[in-house]
């Protein structure tokens, strides 16, 4: 008996929190021994290994039993799961769209189109996987630290957004705080990248890319717009209601962004190769990067036009 029970408890102990390990194991050992002794009394003989094994199975697999003693029972709890799922979906949708666009560009422009497209697909897949892992880790850390999103506790039904795709009948005056948090995060990342306090892995398809000096005239306008946007978003976060001045301000800012996107689109050579690591045809890679940049600018301009049009409609309705 002892060998099998010891083996079971040894496995269990290896999974238990160190401070409670001996205590829990001693208690379970006593419980198992009591159960075995009672069964042996009933049957008038010692239990076979098979019967003992069956009894231990009733206690549960050591991994399951140990899991019940751990303070943390889940990676992301129900309090934050919905928000986690929302953010994860948003991130993956954006990455899928960007990956699809890059693949399309590679297919249309690369001499070895299939190979380039597969390479872009693999890189996009890894980036999406990393992004999903980072989002998951961030929410697991929030949940572990018992962090709570105060706006989830103090929600006002009038402010609840219609979700990522929206539904008919959503109130016009409400600003979703989840959307605002997302916008603050993206604007913040853009700002930090723009002032070079944040660097992304710059190697792409075997070359290191960087923005060229051609973007210099755009430096201060983008910087100023980012700062004003962050202030505006901060106000939105504190007071999630639309007012005429705030909608008008967003409209003006969107028009300014649109002007910058058009200027950037018309600027030749936005990116350049800083270093060729292993690309056989760096000029071609540069061509893909520049085309990608132009497509991104077109997408951003279209999004900005849509947002501006929405604001115009809101102001007219008002």
């Amino acid at each position, binding site marked *: 008996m002892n060998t099998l029970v010891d083996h079971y408890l040894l496995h269990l102990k290896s999974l238990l929190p160190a401070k409670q390990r001996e205590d829990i194991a001693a208690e*379970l050992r*006593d419980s198992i021994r009591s159960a075995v002794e009672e069964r042996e009394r009933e049957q008038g003989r010692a239990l076979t290994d098979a019967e003992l094994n069956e009894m231990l199975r009733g*206690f549960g697999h050591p991994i399951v039993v140990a899991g019940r*003693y751990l303070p943390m029972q889940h990676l992301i709890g129900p309090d934050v799961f919905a928000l986690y799922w929302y953010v994860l979906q948003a991130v993956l949708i954006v990455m899928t769209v960007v990956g699809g666009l890059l693949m399309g560009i590679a297919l249309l422009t690369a001499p070895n189109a299939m190979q380039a497209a597969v390479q872009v697909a693999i890189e996009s897949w890894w980036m999406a996987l990393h992004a999903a892992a980072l989002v998951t880790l961030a929410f697991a850390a929030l949940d572990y630290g018992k962090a709570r999103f105060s706006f989830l506790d103090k929600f006002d039904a009038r402010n609840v957004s219609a979700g990522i795709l929206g539904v008919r009948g959503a109130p016009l005056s409400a600003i979703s705080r989840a959307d605002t948090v997302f916008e603050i995060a993206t604007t913040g990342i853009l700002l930090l990248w723009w002032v070079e306090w944040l660097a992304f892995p710059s190697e792409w398809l075997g070359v290191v890319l960087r923005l060229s000096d051609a973007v210099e005239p755009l430096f201060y306008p983008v910087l100023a717009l980012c700062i004003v946007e962050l202030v505006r978003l901060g106000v939105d976060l504190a007071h999630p209601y639309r007012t005429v001045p705030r909608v008008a301000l967003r409209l003006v800012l969107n028009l300014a962004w649109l002007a910058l996107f058009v200027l950037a689109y018309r600027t030749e050579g936005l990116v350049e190769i800083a270093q060729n690591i292993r690309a056989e045809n760096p000029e071609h890679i540069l061509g893909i990067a520049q085309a990608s940049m132009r497509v991104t600018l077109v997408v951003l301009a279209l999004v900005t036009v849509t947002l501006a049009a929405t604001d115009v409609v809101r102001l007219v309705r008002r």
Partner: protein
Amino acid sequence: MPSDLIDKLRLELRRGTLTVAVLAQLRSEHYGYTLRKALAKLGLDIDEGTLYPLLRRLESQGLLTSEWREEDKREKRFYRLSAEGRTILKQLLDEWRALNGALDNIV
């Protein structure tokens, strides 16, 4: 699938009631094994893998006290309801009776 569903719903239904049953049974002192037997005798089966972590959790919440003591030439951990546990149990039983009454009216 219907069997899985009923198991899941049964588990949800039992989860809260097990805590009340364990607290109520520990108005008198027990160690894990005798507690489980006593509950089973009264019609409430609870497996060891659920009972022992539950006892730890209730103790860490201050609702139970425990001590290691020798009985039948073996060291055993005895549990008993604490003063705070008595207060909480009374509140939980009031809640349980109210729920039970409401459910009786509904069904």
